[in-house]
């Protein structure tokens, strides 16, 4: 089924003056796989909402123009009718499930459409076979990993048999291995002749699947490429547009840019990069390291989730912690920060001062102003010092704002500020760059480098090879609760990319 967006303008407010989409035209042929890329806030998610009917039926705003699905105007259809032809998968695996167990979830869409129970059972059986979900049947949604949830989401949407699939940053919370599974699912849909629209920052995994990459900027389709075309232009070009790279194997050159793009903001990004010490310089300075021992944790005695005798973190450096979902990375972070484990481990954590910046920073911002947030953990409270910390993170002008009113990146920096103020020498980050575009990723990277140069020791859980190559000095890889390798990044970039993709 083909999709056509004709002269679309849309604004979330009452007038079209501050429209997020401006007179946008987009034709997607039946059976095509189109990727919408662009920086955050460029309007690509809004386009996906136009296609799955959330605009104009769920979100209010001002809209001009027509969205036609196979010739039918979405504004004349109800959401229930649209959901028969368009299946949607969203970014956050935590919040797209309505049921508490997998079987019901797979049948949910079909039940809503009022299909015959026998047919539903048949359809569920088919998708289970198609997506290899046998091991996930009968499980509670709350016990699944992010990747498993995303698979169930795709399968349950697929069960209703829509002609169009709309995916909104489906890979944001996945590791590289499950992203490969996701790619397989997308290519299966494509083979079945379905139309697929994907809004995504990570482009590399869609290299062989996508027919077209549309670059959205300022509410319009600014450029269009075939994947091979964009790849041929090189990673510098993609970076200059704020896009993630197309090919992980070419990443090495992004880390140490020789040739620079001509776009203004790419220059500002590399300026950002030069402001702080390049990774190699820091790595060469011989510094001592912090040693942890006896990092173990288990729910059942026979199945340890975490089993590490000895962990060494180089002081004043950024260390990446990689490994597949369920390898025990988060548990390690929690034990390090004293949130899990025996009272002895907790006491040790309190003594050395370890702070965790959570993936969802909303969880750790409590107070009414940014300044209060920093003062809260401080002993004794010292406003001058707090302002200094805020200044160091470019937050001084927001000192009196409510933390919840800030943008995602600013919130993250507030959380970092509160960690610094509580006197922690070690800061652990849980996926600080998931779902960020290239420029935002560089900004996070700059903040982290600055922290490291100021003497903090950083451990970053991440699935983002671009980020690691940009900011980290050493790498720890975990598997099944154990550390399998630890090496300095310099000279081992190939090994890293290989280990992450495998």
């Amino acid at each position, binding site marked *: 089924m083909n999709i056509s967006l004709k002269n679309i303008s849309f604004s979330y407010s009452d007038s079209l003056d501050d429209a997020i989409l401006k007179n946008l035209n987009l034709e997607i042929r039946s059976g095509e796989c189109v990727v919408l890329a662009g920086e955050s806030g460029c309007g690509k998610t809004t386009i996906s909402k136009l296609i799955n009917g959330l605009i104009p039926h769920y979100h209010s705003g001002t809209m001009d123009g027509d969205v036609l699905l196979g010739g039918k105007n979405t504004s004349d259809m*109800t959401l229930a009718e649209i*959901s028969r032809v368009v299946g949607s998968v969203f970014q956050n695996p935590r*919040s797209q499930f309505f049921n508490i167990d997998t079987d019901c979830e797979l049948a949910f869409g079909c039940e809503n459409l*009022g299909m015959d129970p026998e047919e*539903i059972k048949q359809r569920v059986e088919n998708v289970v076979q198609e997506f290899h979900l046998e091991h996930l049947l009968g499980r509670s949604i709350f*016990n699944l990993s992010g990747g498993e949830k995303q698979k169930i989401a795709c399968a349950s949407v697929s069960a209703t048999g829509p002609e169009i699939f709309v995916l909104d940053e489906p890979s944001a919370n996945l590791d590289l291995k499950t992203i490969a599974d996701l790619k397989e699912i997308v290519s299966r849909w494509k083979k079945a002749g379905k139309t697929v629209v994907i809004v995504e920052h990570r482009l590399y995994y869609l290299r062989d699947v996508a027919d077209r990459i549309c670059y959205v900027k300022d509410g319009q389709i600014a450029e269009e490429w075939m994947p091979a075309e964009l790849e041929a232009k090189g990673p510098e070009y993609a970076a200059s547009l704020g896009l993630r790279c197309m090919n992980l194997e070419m990443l090495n050159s992004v880390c140490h840019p020789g040739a620079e793009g001509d776009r203004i903001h790419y220059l500002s990004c590399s300026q950002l990069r030069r402001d702080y010490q390049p990774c190699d310089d820091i790595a060469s300075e011989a510094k001592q390291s912090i040693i942890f021992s006896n990092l173990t944790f288990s729910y059942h005695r026979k199945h340890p989730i975490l089993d590490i005798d000895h962990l060494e973190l180089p002081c004043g450096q950024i260390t990446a912690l990689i490994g597949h979902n369920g390898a025990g990375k988060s548990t390690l972070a929690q034990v390090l920060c004293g949130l899990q484990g025996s009272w002895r481990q907790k006491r040790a954590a309190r003594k050395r001062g370890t702070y965790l910046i959570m993936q969802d920073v909303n969880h750790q911002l*409590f107070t009414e102003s940014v300044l209060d947030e920093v003062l809260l953990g401080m002993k004794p409270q010292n406003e001058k010092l707090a302002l200094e910390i805020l200044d160091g993170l470019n937050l001084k002008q927001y000192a009196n704002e409510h933390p*919840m009113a800030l943008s995602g990146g600013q919130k993250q920096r507030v959380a970092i500020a509160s960690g610094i103020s509580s006197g922690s020498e070690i800061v652990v980050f849980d996926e600080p760059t998931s779902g960020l575009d290239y420029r935002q990723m560089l900004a996070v990277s700059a903040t982290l480098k600055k922290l490291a140069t100021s003497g903090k020791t950083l451990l970053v859980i991440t699935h983002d090879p671009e980020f690691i190559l940009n900011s980290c000095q050493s790498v720890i890889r975990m598997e099944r609760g154990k550390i399998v390798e630890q090496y300095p990044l310099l000279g081992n970039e190939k090994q890293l990319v290989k280990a992450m993709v495998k």
Partner: protein
Amino acid sequence: MTKQSRNLAFALDPRTKLLLAVVANGMVFTAPLFYSLLMVVVASILLLLEEKWKFVCAFFFVYLTAGFFFDFVKNLDIGTSGTIILASLFLMYRIMPACAVLYYVITTTKVNEFLACMSRMHVSNKVTIPLIVMIRFFPTVYDESRAIGNAMRMRGIRLFSLRTLKSPVAFLEYRLVPLLVSITKIGDELSIAAVTRGLSAETKRTCIATIVFPNL
């Protein structure tokens, strides 16, 4: 949350569960203590059939200890503030049986069964959908709340500390503000996920779960 495979040997009809919940709620304050005890026993048996040993043991322990405690203190003279604290504790004690029943109902009722039984009772979707969103929400709120508790501990804000004793309201605020922010967001995302998958007030749903009273 729920067990991997449910023990289907004894599964109550969702409608029976609903009735049970209503009765339990109605009895909280009106019924004499004996019926409360009966309710506890019924809930425990049902929960044991679902193999929730831990919960039942913990519940029985707390409930009985509390019972003896109140029996012991009712004749003591403990002053006004003491009485207020005791009264509120007693309130919680009386609510406990109903909580056990609700826990049973919520953890064992599947969303689609509930939807089907409501439509069988000719309850409008406009009533059912908000209801199941609520049921679906409890575990999420719990998860979020735990994450926030973790973040608070890291900042040295604990329930049993001098700071909390000095300003309990601030403690509640720290706990509730981020919780509200995140569950509002999740609630919004959940309803988006539901409407894009065709859940609406107009269409009639089918259900793969069969709900009949087997013995009738």
